[in-house]
């Protein structure tokens, strides 16, 4: 560390799976579609407030479409992960970015989860928890086979660690 101002966190080595972009986009579209459909149906049924409801539906749809067009690619650039022999290292976020580091010796549980959409895209999320109550380390958008391998490897490491990891 020579230059005082020259230190920074390097990006983790691995990108998430390319299908994650489509997955995120689908998620955003689905979450936008629900209120838009509700507003549009209400607009069709309720005569007096039709203009307002349809404008609101349009605004929500526009915002959702903009997010779906723009955010997933940004997330894909930011979301990266890495597992070394010592630690799990994950970067997430877009406007608010977050780097999380959990040492292998303090990992308590390793979970893999797959929602319906994730199953369709053959993706999985690996959640690594430590004894801290302040949130787990989540790696989203991994290819499901790779996620299973990773979880297996992390579990093996965890079991080899003595103590209760506090």
């Amino acid at each position: 560390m020579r230059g005082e101002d020259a230190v920074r966190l390097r990006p983790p080595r691995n990108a998430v799976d390319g299908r994650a972009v489509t997955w995120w986009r689908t998620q955003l579209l689905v979450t936008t579609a629900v209120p838009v459909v509700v507003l549009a149906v209400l607009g069709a049924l309720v005569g007096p407030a039709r203009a307002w409801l349809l404008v609101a539906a349009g605004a929500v749809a526009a915002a959702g479409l903009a997010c779906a067009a723009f955010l997933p690619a940004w997330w894909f650039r930011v979301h990266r992960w890495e597992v070394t022999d010592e630690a799990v290292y994950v970067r997430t976020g877009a406007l608010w970015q977050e780097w999380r580091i959990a040492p292998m010796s303090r990992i308590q549980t390793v979970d893999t989860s797959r929602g319906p959409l994730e199953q369709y895209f053959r993706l999985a999320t690996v959640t690594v928890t430590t004894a801290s109550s302040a949130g787990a380390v989540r790696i989203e958008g991994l290819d499901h086979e790779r996620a299973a391998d990773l979880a297996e490897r992390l579990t093996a490491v965890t079991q080899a660690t003595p103590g209760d990891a506090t």
Partner: protein
Amino acid sequence: MPWRRLDPRTPLATAAVLCGVAGGAGLPVALGLAGSRPLWQALSWVLAGALLLLLGGTGADRVRLRRTRYRVGPDRVDLHTGLLHLKRRSLARERIRSVDLTANPLQRLLGLVKVRIGTGERSGGDAALELELVARAEGERLRRELLARAAAPEDPRHDGALAALDPRWIRYAPVSFVAPAIGGAAAGAVMQVSEWFGAQGEVIDWIGERFSSVAIPWMILWLVLAATAVGAVGALGLWIEMWWNYRLEREPGGTLRVTRGLLTARSVSIEERRLRGVELVEPLGVRLFGAARVDAVATGLAEKDEDKHGDLKNLMPAVPRPLADRVAAQVLREPGPPTGTPLAPHPRAARNRRIRWALWSVLAPAALLALLGLLLTPVLLYVAAGWTAVLTPLALLLARDAHRNLGHAVSGAYLVTRSGTVRRTTVALQRSGVIGWTVKQSYFQRRAGLLTLTVTTAAGSGAYAILDAGRSQGLAFAAEAVPGLLTPFLEQPVDAPENRETPEARSTEG
């Protein structure tokens, strides 16, 4: 090992509590019934109900008493309880982390205590065994027996009493945030109770008459002062009830024990193995008088005492800061207080952010008021002007103070971080207790070259933040505080271009 039972006087304590409940609920009911029928009839109805409640409650408690038994074996503590739904609980003795005793005034009179045997679970949930109630001597015996650990070496410098009550500490009670809360609650209670009796209007009229000769602002001022005075008295009373007979001691075997309480006596034990550090808390009022409260940062402390009489993690009430530092050092078995080390200040950019927040929080509502004033009535314009004139300097002062309070340092085996202005906290956390780092940067922080570094730990609130440190400053600090954890992920982009992002590079994962 023989099975033991709860103390046979337990139903007595229950009966006494039920008497109180019956009296408290019966009186208004009797008054209400007496309106429509003769007094003797109303009274006999209420008495019959009270008797039923008393007999039923005491009977149920007797059954519970007969069906409950416990046993302390060489490896396990067992508790069997329940009439229809039988519950058999068993705790491994090595997992027991705390044995806390509490007794309310009535139970103290009868010489009984409630015993809570905890395993260091996070929320005060099902994992703890509760014995309700046993004789005080039996409670003490359980506490000593279950917490006795042979391994810890004797340490005459740090064993014994660490602190005992100094009645002069009470001067910090009225300046805590408890006082205004009690004052407000008292004012609310007056209004509520008078409404029950349909006399709220009369109370308001009566107050109006008292102040008929003075202007409204003076009346408001007087009422606020009165509420403050009531709050201060209430805070003094609460302080006495909470901290009377206070004593902090270290018992042989490495257990910290806090005993305190005037009416309800409490004994809280924290095993030193669970201790990861201490936290000095200075609410604004207390800080202005140079005092601080000491809390423990320990794993598996239930967040709240059931009877809400204060946190289990409280090691000390607000005391003069030097004393707080000294006791913190003794609690941690350190020669000097880690909480007293000089801290590295955070960059000017952090101050600019705080000033910007302060100005936004004052000027945005002012602008809204002014806009409404232009549209509706000029009165709002004056309100907006007054608001800005009064609150801007205050907000700027708080912003400067907030920046001055930011700081972090490594002190021996501890890392220290401080932040906050209305409630300033200084945390000293064992470096070996760090179980991860979280680095956060918002868009604005990236532009200002700042980052927020969060230490995750199994103890206390689970995460302690180092807010708005300089980018290199924060990362270098993290690398120094916990060597090896963050270092592999740092790079110096100017000097070492080969460390740049190379997705195809050796993946340790595959």
